[in-house]
């Protein structure tokens, strides 16, 4: 299945690169910075619009206050998302020129379409954030809608590329050149795309939801429990709490797709060496080359999870040559971390939903709020772990079964210098983001009722209804 050995003279033949590992680290680092930030680009506009919608409906100025303050955060984070994403685009060329030269025409369309989502997002986020008090309430609300839509289409198109790398199709590779390219089929006719997009999209709401809620849960613990904090806590927390249990179901679907299309990755998730019927799952432990040691075995669970059949046959790692196996322990540890955190988040969510549905109030235990504070960072860890599972589990291939990562890398020298500078710049970036978020949070909360004399949509109706309920 490997691409044919190329003539050394071919312009994009594999090269010797001493720093392949550093190149991979650089790519991974840049993703790890971009992805948590864009979760806010995807989910935050929806939160803000929801709050603005509540304001329009109820006329209660508190919603508008929260929405307006959050939209400033949204703009700052969007700027950071834009620049970190641009670096990713540069890096694809700087670090993996052979990959781009060979396959750019197969998957490039995904990014071309993505560019239009970015345009849309950048345009309307500006109109929305600068348009407070300057557009009519309804026009302002509507200007936020394309931002939400573009957040989804942007993820869809970029993840179509990643799904294609994991499960490539839609082309013929001969002598290092592709032909018979069908870009639409390659990107959007790919089974792998859908679970990745949905899993990532839901993850964005979990991450943005729990991280935002964590801030206000912290304030809650410190005794700041006004209306403002309540609204700002409850909205993201509710969304995240509903998304977290659903994410387990989506993750199960992802695992089944992996089992079907990337059996080697599935074997790495568990550290399964021999092909087995009724394969177990081991919690924890360590894979030492042919089995998992010191793990807690749960018999038949892997077969059950991967194929929904407790005696299904699961292919082991030994089905492929040793140099086509991913680094099992990294993948396995990342996967177990994600799943473990996934259940933890679902547990916190269950407490919240249960208390609300039974008693119509927020939980009172301080432990619940401590849990929410922890859930914020934990959900980011789950997000990164999930991507490490996907991306390291794809190794040693950059395009699964077609091109190995070492065939893709650049021949340029100086990768370590680039790596160190990138780390320094990202450290500065993170410091700056933390600083601006704190600054924005310190600005005093001013509850204002909105543009002068404007009766928000339906204010009267909502009041009447409130009376009727009483």
């Amino acid at each position, binding site marked *: 299945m490997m691409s044919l050995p190329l003539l050394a003279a071919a312009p994009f033949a594999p090269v010797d690169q001493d720093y392949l590992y550093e190149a991979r680290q650089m790519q991974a680092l840049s993703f790890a910075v971009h992805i948590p930030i864009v979760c806010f680009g995807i989910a935050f506009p929806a939160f803000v619009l929801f709050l603005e919608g509540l304001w329009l409906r109820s006329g209660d100025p508190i919603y508008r206050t929260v929405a307006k303050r959050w939209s400033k955060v949204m703009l700052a984070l969007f700027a950071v998302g834009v620049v970190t994403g641009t670096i990713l685009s540069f890096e694809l060329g700087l670090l993996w020129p052979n990959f781009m030269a060979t396959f750019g025409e197969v998957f*490039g369309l995904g990014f071309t379409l993505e560019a239009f989502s970015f345009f849309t997002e950048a345009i309307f986020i500006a109109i929305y954030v600068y*348009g407070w008090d300057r557009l009519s309430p309804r026009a302002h609300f509507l200007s936020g809608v394309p931002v939400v839509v573009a957040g989804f289409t942007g993820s869809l198109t970029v993840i179509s590329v990643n799904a294609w790398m994991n499960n490539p199709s839609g082309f013929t590779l001969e002598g290092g050149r592709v032909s018979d390219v069908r870009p639409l089929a390659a990107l959007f006719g790919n089974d792998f795309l859908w679970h990745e997009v949905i899993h990532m999209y839901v993850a964005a709401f979990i991450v943005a939801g729990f991280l935002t809620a964590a801030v206000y849960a912290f304030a809650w613990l410190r005794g700041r429990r006004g209306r403002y904090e309540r609204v700002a806590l409850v909205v993201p927390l509710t969304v995240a709490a509903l998304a977290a249990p659903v994410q387990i179901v989506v993750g199960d679907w992802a695992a089944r797709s992996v089992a079907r299309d990337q059996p080697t990755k599935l074997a790495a998730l568990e550290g399964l060496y021999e092909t087995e019927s009724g394969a177990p799952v081991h919690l924890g432990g360590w894979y030492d080359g042919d089995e998992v040691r010191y793990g807690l075995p749960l018999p038949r669970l892997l077969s059950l999870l991967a194929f929904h059949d407790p005696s299904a046959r699961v292919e082991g790692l030994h089905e492929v040559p040793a140099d086509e196996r991913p680094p099992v322990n990294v993948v396995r540890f990342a996967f177990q971390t994600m799943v473990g955190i996934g259940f933890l988040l679902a547990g916190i969510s269950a407490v919240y939903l249960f208390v609300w549905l039974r008693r119509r109030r927020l939980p009172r235990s301080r432990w619940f709020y401590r849990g929410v504070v922890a859930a914020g960072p934990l959900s980011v860890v789950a997000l990164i772990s999930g991507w490490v599972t996907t991306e390291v589990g794809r190794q040693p291939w950059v395009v699964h079964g077609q091109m190995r990562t070492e065939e893709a890398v650049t021949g340029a020298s100086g990768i370590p210098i680039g790596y160190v500078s990138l780390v320094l710049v990202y450290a500065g970036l993170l410091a700056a983001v933390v600083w*601006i978020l704190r600054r924005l949070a310190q600005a005093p909360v001013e509850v204002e009722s909105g543009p002068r004399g404007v009766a928000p949509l339906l204010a009267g109706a909502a009041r009447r209804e409130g009376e009727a309920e009483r």
Partner: protein
Amino acid sequence: MTLDEAPLLLMLVGLAAYAVLGGADFGAAFWQLAAHGERGVALREHAYRAMGPVWEANHVWLVFVLVVCWTAYPQAFASIFSTLTIPLFVAALGIILRGTAYAVHAGTAREIERRAVDAVFSISSILTPFALGTAVGAIASGRVPVGNARGDLVTSWLNPSSIAVGILAVATGAYVAAAYLAGDAARAGLDDEAAAFRTRALGAGVVTGAIAFTALAVVAADGDRVGERLLEWPALAAVMASAVAGLATLEFVRRSRFEAARYGASAAVAAVVIGWALAQQPELLPGLTVEQAAAGRSTLVATVVGVVLGAVVVVPSLAVLFRLVLRGRFDPKAAAGEHPAPQRRSRRGRVPLARFAAGAAALGLPLMLIFDRGPFLAIGVLALLTFVALASVALAAAAAANGRSDEDGPESPSG
């Protein structure tokens, strides 16, 4: 024009737009660096305010050029990025620093913070166009061979042509920005700022013109055939058009006709981009013609169709954004204007959201657990997402509204 060339044309449009709009954005920062004292603060604030709403959209043009390049001419893209690793990496770092500075600018309160942010912003705003310009110079002077990092990693961009184009890129940005900011200040009624930027625009216009001529001479003498062809028909026509547009722009600025100046400056920059393209024809890189570099037919068709469809959405949206900005709708004094009160609509019967949500969950969950692919799975996924959305709306609205003065704790001053 052939199908092979169509994406190139799109890239040139993108490049011209980036040179004008992105250039103005970089140039605004150039003037911030040059501004001092109390007056300087006003100029700096004006520049941030004028560029704030548009810089992200302006920036996407660069991303657009890159992605079309790697889709339609993947070998050219890979060759350029691997050989020109250093300047492009520097540009990338500059882009991170600038974006970060934009993001944190809003939070600066003390003078020392403002100075630090401004310094990072301005330096990265000079470094980035310079680095991108050296890359253009490298391509135009034929120093990027086809292949994975086959060119010289240093001399490919550290040479007379690259330096000349790099300096030209910075100067052009400064000029376009001064003309734009002068116009913007005049519209906002900030006469002092308008006069200050007008003076700067005139000075920068003269300097940029001189740099442009020098750069032309340097590239012509230093580069291979491309440089010479810049001085031959048809590229020469574009170069002359650029010179004429540049002169006309100066005159417009002198007469404080800033809108005309804006178009003139854009035309001058666009003409240079066209001239470069004409001089390169038919090669993208030495030994790689457009035809050889082009992706397969299906990819090219999909790219062009995709861009056209995208443009249908994006071009009117961009027009709206620029209209709002250019008409001053985002100026501070435009706040809380006379908006018509939205009409009250009678509320339709209360939708039993929670019940719908429960139904969606009951439908979606089994479907997702049973099916691995196909339409039933799709229905299951949609149903489950619908559940999350509806239940969120129902629960969050109720939970946020409830508890004005409830059992959760004493009402405390928020903040």
